[in-house]
Every structure is written in structure tokens, then in C-alpha cells.
């Protein structure tokens, strides 16, 4: 229990003194996860919309597989990405293993199914409302997807934030593909794992509290930027 208080006070002092290492790994955490989130959203949101408006042969199977992949074990994703990016693997020539880029790739794979599934669920409801209107206006598939994405943006934000939450707190995959190299690929979660390994529980908890605080801050910031949950709007 004393570790908890030590952790809280340590977190406070790290924040107040703007510890250089802390700022560095926090910014790296943000950079990796926000980049992964941006790319994953660009893939997953249109894909979720496509699944809502289009009927094709293996649609049900695709949706079922997508839902199942929401629970992808990160450490397995990490290992698979590792094997592909290793110098003796198919993409070894790019030398991407143990770089932030490798961590971004792993996180994209982890969160795309999650974002696509939630987006699809939300847009399916919307599509049943818009179906007759959009069909009668003789719109193309692209136009229908654009309309759904724009009018469903609040629900899609939730999908993206769920993806952010999974990526920022993830440690298994980025530990394997990033290697937790100091000043290069160390982020908040891998630093927490390292401090735990050293038996420095107070420091590990301090970093944990900062990670939780960061997740809350980013969520608040995004809500503020998109003006949701405000008077006269929702």
C-alpha cells in the first residue's frame, strides 16, 4: 500500500519538475499511438461503412472474423510483425525492426479490427434510417459511404477513441517489435514493464498514473476539439 502513495507522490514530482526523460517517453508514446490511430482510422472507418452499405458474398463471414479479431492478442501480433520485419524475414531489407515505425505497424494491426467493428455497428443503425432516401436519390456507393461517415461522425469518434485506448495502453506487441531501447523506442508502457522488472514499484506506478492521466487528457482534448457533449449539440 505504501508503494501506491510513493507512486502518487513520485508521479507528482516527475510532473512538476518536467523530468526530461519522462517528457521524452511521453511524447514518443503519443507520437506512436496517434500516428497508428490516424492510419488505422483511415483504413477502418471507410471499411466499416463499406460493410454497412454493401452486400457481397462473404459479408457475414467478414464481419464475424472482424469481430473475432477485436480480441487479437497483442503479443502474437508483435511476434508476427517481428518475424516479417526481422533481417531474415521478408521485409528485412527495410531495417524497420526496433524502430518506432515497427511499433506503429503493430499497433495499426491491433486496432484496425476494433475500430472497424465498432464503426460498422454504429453505421449499420444509421444506414437503416438512410437506406430508402439514399437509394431513391440514386447515389453511388462512394456518396453513400461519405454521407454515412459524415453523419455518423460522433459514433465514429467513439470507435476511434476505443482504438486509442487499446493502443496507448498496449505493451506486449511494442515490447517485441520495439525492443524498449532507451531514447529510441522506449514508451510509457514498456518503461513501466522495465521498472516493475527492476522491483521499482513506486516508479512503475508513477509512470502508470501519468499514462492514465494522459489517456484522460487526450480524450478530453478530442471531445473539446470536436465540440461534442455541449449545450445545444450532442
Amino acid at each position: 500500500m505504501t508503494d501506491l502513495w510513493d507512486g502518487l507522490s513520485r508521479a507528482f514530482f516527475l510532473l512538476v519538475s518536467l523530468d526530461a526523460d519522462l517528457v521524452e517517453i511521453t511524447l514518443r508514446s503519443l507520437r506512436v499511438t496517434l500516428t497508428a490511430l490516424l492510419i488505422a482510422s483511415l483504413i477502418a472507418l471507410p471499411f466499416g461503412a463499406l460493410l454497412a452499405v454493401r452486400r457481397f458474398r462473404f459479408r457475414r463471414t467478414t464481419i464475424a472474423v472482424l469481430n473475432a479479431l477485436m480480441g487479437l492478442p497483442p503479443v502474437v501480433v508483435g511476434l508476427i510483425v517481428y518475424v516479417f520485419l526481422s533481417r531474415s524475414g521478408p521485409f528485412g531489407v527495410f531495417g524497420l525492426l526496433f524502430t518506432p515505425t515497427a511499433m506503429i505497424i503493430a499497433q495499426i494491426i491491433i486496432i484496425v479490427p476494433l475500430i472497424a467493428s465498432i464503426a460498422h455497428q454504429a453505421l449499420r443503425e444509421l444506414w437503416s434510417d438512410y437506406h430508402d432516401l439514399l437509394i431513391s436519390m440514386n447515389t453511388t456507393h462512394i456518396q453513400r459511404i461519405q454521407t454515412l461517415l459524415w453523419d455518423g461522425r460522433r459514433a465514429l469518434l467513439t470507435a476511434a477513441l476505443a482504438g486509442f485506448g487499446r493502443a496507448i495502453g498496449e505493451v506486449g506487441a511494442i515490447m517485441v517489435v520495439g525492443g524498449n531501447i532507451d531514447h529510441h523506442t522506449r514508451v510509457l508502457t514498456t518503461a513501466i514493464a522495465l521498472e516493475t522488472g527492476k522491483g521499482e514499484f513506486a516508479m512503475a506506478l508513477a509512470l502508470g498514473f501519468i499514462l492514465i492521466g494522459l489517456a484522460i487528457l487526450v480524450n478530453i482534448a478530442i471531445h473539446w476539439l470536436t465540440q461534442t457533449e455541449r449545450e445545444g449539440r450532442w
Partner: protein
Amino acid sequence: MKRAILGAVAALALSTAALAEDMKMAVTTSFHNSGLSDILLPAIKQDLGLEVQLLVVGTGQAIRLGEAGDVDAILVHSRKAEDKFLAGGYGTHRREIMYNDFVFIGPKSDEAAIATATAATDALQKIAGAKAPFVSRGDDSGTHKKELSLWSTAGLDAAAFDGWYNAVGAGMGAALNTASGMNAYIMSDRASWLNFGNKGDLALLYSGDPVLFNQYAYLPVNPAKHPHVKTELAAKLEGWLVSDKAKALINAYTINGETLFVFNAKP
């Protein structure tokens, strides 16, 4: 305001790391946990302008990384695995740098009475005889291999042990955490133990048998197998590691007044 924040986020996402001369080296957890790397790396950067990026893993994984060509050099401590690595043609040569030693840690009450053991193997026989809880790394690391070889020297078969023997399959720190939680015996390198923050009711009970000395060696990855490895930088680093500067830093490194490493590279 909004645009400024979005711009800042985009800049954050797009900025790339500055390019500097760097190389990757896989090292064992025990080397890194000792804290010696925090002394050596800044000195290397200052003297050679070389940024050494450390991948902290067990010896088993370090060797795998070297074999796959994912690192430029490895610094490990398991003679058998090193010889196999060289025999496979994955490394150019093996250079001994320094040694430290292993110690036996256990509960202060010491129910197996290993504090009075006459040799490392005697200590292990006492633990097995008392069936006292024992935590093993179980991760194919140098420390784990050493522990297994000690069991077999003591005439015991680690694979046949029952409930009291716990192979946790984790790094030194995590294994020490487990031992601390279970109040169990464990074999650790001295550096990791001294730097460990969660000692709980554990204490250092036995050390000093020469069989417990632990030789670290530096092995550059063979460019004939992996043309992309930075052989020149690896050679530069080797030159520094065997220099008088490194010798002074390594021999002078202490925790709580205890010397941890003894430099023994031949110039």
C-alpha cells in the same frame, strides 16, 4: 486555437528521429540491471560519437537476434551458447571483456541452511534436500543455463523436481519479484540483486565459489552472413571496450561500496 493544436499534433506525428551514427547491441538483462550500461554508454557516446542502442533480453534471445542479423553485436555470458554461435558462422570472433559473479539469495530464516554450505553445489543439494521453494529463471538465459549446469554438477536433475521448483520463464528482475513474493531461494547475478528494489524478506546467503564466476564476452555479428551489419562501428566499439578507459570505468563501478565487475580483456 483549434488549428494550432491540430497542427501541433500533426507535427508530433510526423517528426522523425535525428540521424546519428548508431548501432544496435543485444545485451543480457543482468548487464543492464547492474546499471553499468548507464556509465559506459554516455562515455562511449562522448569518446566515439557513437550511439549504442541496447536491446535488453536474455542470452537465448540475444543469440537469436544476432543469428537473424537484427543487431550488430551481442554482449552475453554463456560460453556454450557463444561457441555454438561462432561455430554456426554467425559471429566473427569472441572477445572476453569482464566478469562478475552469481550469488544465492534466499529467505532470511534460511531453512535449508545454505549460508553454511561449503560449495555452490553443496548449497543446491541442501535446497533440494529441504525441498525449499526455489525460483528458476526458466527462460533459456545465461543465468538459467548456468543454474541448470550447477544442478547437474550437483548430481541432481532439474527436470525431475516437483512442486518446490518454480521455473517462471522471466527476466532476472521479474524472477526476483517472484522469489520475493514466495519467500523462495533463487540464483541471481550480484549486480541485479544489489540494484533490486523489492528485496522484502530476502537476503544474500551464499557466494564466493569460483564456479560462480560469470564471464561476459563481446561477439560482433558476421558481415559474411548479414552484409548490412555495421562491422566498422562494432570494431570501433570493441576497441573502446578493451581500452584502459573502459577498464577504469568497469573496475571502479560499485553499488553500496561493493565492486561488481572485474575487467579481464586482453589488449
